[in-house]
């Protein structure tokens, strides 16, 4: 026993180092798995508050591009309304069945207060949290395309697992042919992401548009992602399909969070399939 105490006293500096290093490495490994929510994250009131203050100053720098994007989106939506008017005028609506009018998705507007895109595993911060109805595992988009999925949340702030993260895997498909794949990122260029698991029957050409697949309960189908930049076809299989994003991930400001009201229903029925 005495020798044990002697040992501890002699090596206490090393043991302290070992203890702290093990804590740090545990946190790191936890960060690399998608399932576990993290113990230490920036969705707390101190870092959230500081980021919020700083972003209220730096916001002015991308006001111009943000205005342009908004105007383009308005234009797009107005044109879409005009097109639909033409269709509904010719239809006679007789009965209203409330089942047909339930809302599946709701968009909540928030702002990105901390943007990262240069690391291997990038996270963003939002200035809304549980008080504004946000939850974990909700999709984040803007008018140009997808951005990520909410990972950690506090009362007023949330962190987003960016699509520029090694843990991000998002179901996407070709706009023209319903072949599905998975969107991943290899960490090299923040404007270019990759698609894996696409079946070899799919016909891919450079310039094809990629949209979200809608198989997961997070993103609705048809949200824009990017266009195919280049790809390799070796041994009858697609390799390294590079997709250049529509979004400029280095300049993000106002974004929308998508709430899916039928998520639990979908999850439940999918779970039933697994159980059988």
């Amino acid at each position, binding site marked *: 026993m005495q020798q044990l105490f002697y040992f501890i006293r002699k090596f*206490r*500096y090393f043991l*302290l*180092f070992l203890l*702290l*290093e093990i*804590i*740090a*490495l*545990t*946190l*790191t*490994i*936890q*960060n*690399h798995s998608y399932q576990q929510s*993290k113990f*230490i*994250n*920036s969705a*707390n009131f101190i*870092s959230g508050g*500081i980021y919020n203050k*700083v972003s209220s100053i730096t916001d002015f720098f991308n006001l111009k591009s943000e205005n342009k994007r908004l105007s383009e989106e308005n234009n797009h939506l107005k044109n879409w309304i005009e097109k639909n008017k033409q269709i509904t005028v010719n239809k006679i609506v007789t009965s209203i069945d409330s089942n047909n009018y339930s809302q599946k998705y709701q968009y909540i507007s928030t702002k990105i207060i901390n*943007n*990262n*895109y*240069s*690391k*291997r*595993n990038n*996270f963003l*911060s939002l200035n809304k949290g549980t008080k504004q109805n946000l939850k974990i595992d909700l999709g984040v988009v803007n008018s140009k395309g997808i951005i990520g999925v909410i990972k*950690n949340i506090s009362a007023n702030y949330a*962190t987003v697992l960016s699509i520029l993260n*090694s843990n991000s895997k998002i179901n996407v498909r070709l706009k023209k042919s319903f072949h599905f794949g998975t969107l991943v990122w290899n*960490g*090299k260029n*923040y404007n270019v992401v990759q698609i894996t698991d696409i079946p070899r029957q799919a016909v891919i050409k450079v310039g094809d548009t990629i949209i979200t697949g809608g198989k997961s309960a997070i993103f609705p189908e048809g949200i824009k992602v990017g266009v195919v930049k280049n790809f390799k076809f070796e041994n009858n299989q697609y390799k390294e399909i590079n997709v250049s994003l529509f979004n400029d991930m*280095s300049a993000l400001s106002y974004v929308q969070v998508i709430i899916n009201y039928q998520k639990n229903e979908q999850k439940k029925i999918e779970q039933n399939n697994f159980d059988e």
Partner: protein
Amino acid sequence: MNNVVFKNMVRFILLVLFQVLVFNHINFFGHINPLIYITWVVLFPIKKNKNLLLLSSFFLGILIDAFSDSGGIYTAAILFIAYYRLPILEMVLRKTDFDYVLFNIRNIPINKLLLYITILTLLDTFIVFLLDYFSLSDIGIIISNTILTSIFTILLSFFGILLFTKKNK
């Protein structure tokens, strides 16, 4: 004595804020962000009792990790260089005992100071990128990132130390 404590507290807060608010968003050449928080380990007073350095480095790392949502990569790296700081300094200066009271990092020759900062920075950045990429198949990109980031970190922290610290005569 109190003056030293106060100075180090201010330095701690300033290093965290500058790292997370300014230097994490520089994105030089698209992706290079200098890790200036290393100067904490370089400048921390050399004492017989080394536990304080380990504990303070741990909290500095945890704070930076919390702000940048990176798990524990900065903590692991800064702890490692904090633990091996004294052996490295002994190696650089080629002596084994220090005058713990009067030792000032600015009084050592400038080329040795640069070597000391370089070794600490290279070790720290290598661990950061290794833990961030977390796969040996990316070893090429890990090494190139380590070297590029280290160059800017060394330049910034070296001139920062020359500018903001005083020699004692």
